[in-house]
């Protein structure tokens, strides 16, 4: 059965690089970028975006509400 696909958008300028989403993601999608944002934080980004299932775990634990999540159900 084709699996549900997900995608996240991180507001990289507001992310504080706290790493909580990285450890919360069940499929290891997210990593902290080597680059830093305007505040000097290594921001989170969907490194392995194909593995994202849109389960919202990351956004749920994000203290700064910087992650938006989309989900695409497999077409019949």
């Amino acid at each position, binding site marked *: 059965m084709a699996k549900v696909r997900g995608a996240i958008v991180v507001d990289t300028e507001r992310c504080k690089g706290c790493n909580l989403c990285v450890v919360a993601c069940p499929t290891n999608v997210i990593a902290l970028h080597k680059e830093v944002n305007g505040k000097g934080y290594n921001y989170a980004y969907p490194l392995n975006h194909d593995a994202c299932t849109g389960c919202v775990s990351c956004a749920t634990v994000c203290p700064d509400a910087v992650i938006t999540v*989309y989900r695409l159900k497999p077409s019949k």
Partner: protein
Amino acid sequence: MSDSTILTPQDIIERGELVFKKTALLTDNIMSYCPGCGHGVAHRITMEVLEEMGIGDQTIGVAPVGCSVLAYEFMNIDMQQAAHGRAPAVATGIKRVYPDKYVFTYQGDGDLAAIGTAETIHACNRGENIVIIFINNGIYGMTGGQMAPTTLPGMKSSTSPFGRDVQMMGHPLKITEMIAQLPGVVYVTRQAVHKPALVNRAKKAIRKGFEIQKEKKGLAFIEIVSNCNSGWKMTPVNSNIWLEENMLPFFPLGDIKG
């Protein structure tokens, strides 16, 4: 057509459905909390509950002194800032003149269980129809990490540099269990926000608290055991591990009453 290989995130975003975005009841101000602090999550789920219940325009929040004193910069509702320890009294004043509006306090452990102990206990004992959200991170965060009433035995802080000495300072105060004894308090629970499942459970608890207020049944008291990575001098991820291994055994999660 197998869609697993050729779909890009952009395809998913365009063709998929939006399943999570920041609630409109959070302002666009960047939160002043340290990276990884549980306050941010607690703020968000509280505002999400108000949004889902459609009561943002009838709710007045009270944030006293503590890290969350600036809550009114992030909560997009009418808010009052209260003196340290006095939020339950301020909230009583609001609720008594606005019995049909929603009132909640959002307090830290120093505020609620040290300087504000009397106001907390008496608002609860009167069964004020408000929600008290109590963030317990076992330390005074805003002022730089001093010992709080809920600092654990042996736990270091800037005013217990060699660890809390229970001979000198007594044991951590289980204020929530004390509050549960008061008849006016109909719902008492202890939650956490450092794991997705726990966040969802905490949100349900906050929702239950506001439903109780809606039905005018009495006071709902919601403790959230949370981290303070800067005060505890740990990374956010490690602070949540430390929390599970040290805070939760002393402050067990779950509904205590109602």
